[in-house]
């Protein structure tokens, strides 16, 4: 069972805002989708999980300096900038 509170909780975790109407719609859909996911309960705990399909481990390269983006390039897409800095929202009240 998924409650409307669960939807609000998970929206907060994901940094989203859902309206009341959306919350009820998502609740119904999530319940149906999560019920479908229950098929995974059959899978044995003893199986080793696969995080990644390629058997590549610790790929290293030479630790040499390379040219990065210029300050102008890095800031080019920022909605707000000032004197070479990004402007973000206030962190401390």
């Amino acid at each position, binding site marked *: 069972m998924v409650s409307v509170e669960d939807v609000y909780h998970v929206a907060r975790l994901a*940094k989203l805002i859902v309206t009341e109407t959306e919350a009820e719609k998502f609740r119904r859909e*999530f319940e*149906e989708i999560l019920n479908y996911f229950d098929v*995974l309960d059959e*899978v044995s705990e003893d199986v080793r999980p*696969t995080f990644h*399909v*390629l058997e590549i481990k610790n790929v290293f390269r030479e630790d040499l300096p390379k040219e990065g983006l210029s300050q102008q390039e890095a800031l080019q897409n920022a909605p707000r900038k000032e004197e070479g800095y990004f402007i973000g929202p206030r962190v401390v009240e």
Partner: protein
Amino acid sequence: MRLSEWRQLVQDHGCLEMVSRLLEKIERSKLNAYITVCKEESLRRAEEYDKGKVNGRLAGVPVAVKDNITTKGIRTTCASKMLLNYIPVFDAHVVERLKREGAIIIGKTNMDEFGMGTTTETSFFGVVRNPHDLSRVAGGSSGGSAAALAGEEAVLALGSDTGGSIRCPASFCGVYGLKPTYGLVSRYGLIPYANSLEQIGPMANSIEDLALLLGVIAGKDERDSTNAGKGFEFRESKEFRIAVVKNTTAEEQIMDRFYDTLNGFEYEEIELPSLKYALAAYYVIAMSEASSNLARYDGVRYGYSVPELTSWGDYFSRVRAEGFGEEVKRRIMLGSYALSAGYYGKYYLKALKARTLIIEDFRRAFKDFDILVSPTMPTLPFKIGELKDPLTMYKVDVNTVPVNLAGLPALSVPIGFIRGLPVGIQVIGNYFEESKILSFAKKIAAG
């Protein structure tokens, strides 16, 4: 249009003339295949070609690039309001390679928002129409790339495939589309949705064209730590041990066509028992990775923003609530849920364990066979608006998601039409055996 036809036309009329005609066609088109058309740059490149200044395997060839693949100086939106005005400052590895071979990037193709969908209906820029029936979808998420090829609005195209996003639209539009082995093509510059599942891949109107494009984009790139460091060169094989994967799904008329296509081939029928977990495992993993990947959209460094800079948490949430579409929010939330305390073991970890079982099933099958086949899609292309609820849409991906979980290569090959609508067969090969897949596809195409 095939590459050989394009080259003939360019020889007869010049590249500038042919590119101009193509741009006019795109402008008049009803397909909505493109989000951004690179008009000036394409004309400039065509002119250079006519002056003999362009060399390379794709010299003077118009290539359509899916709009989640980063292009320097060309708006790259992922079909999202979130990236409506995002102009990258670098090229994806595959785009560098296209340019090095003289290709003309004709435009950026429409797609489901961030690749999340099977019909291109979740695009902020509106649905892509199927060139074979304008009332139907072109498939997704690389719907624009497939429609551009089938509608003669591009000669070659790039898509990306996380759970079928190249193969589904290839099947629905009647073109070839390959999801390469995981790690064959660098993901550097592919805006991520689910890193452990997705690959950029080639789409084309013939196997030869597809093989050429794969040869161009595959190869070593140290900026993608999952890159296998291998290139691709087509080597034709003649003999195959073929198996039909029996526990896949399709409507009866599609199954009939599927078996008609295999007429004359020797094959066995096998079942991969763990495939029953594939769809659930795929969606749990894809959503979990998406919830983490899309955390980067904060309205500070790039992307959509709202007018008022309120507190940190409130600002983020409002940017994301307004910038993301419904399906993206649904997947981010379900992914956050699957990774949250108390549910990690039940959903995410179980999905990774199911993934192991699916890989083991495939490994066993490839001991006895070179090629596994199934229908690509369980249905013909849907009417626009036909798929109403999310779970019904997810289930359409049932035949295509297993290979993404396993990292295997798979191709959708067009096998004709039913009532005027294209049908595709999915050809799966072992790791890095794209040549075998393409060789078998050639046999199918030869009838």
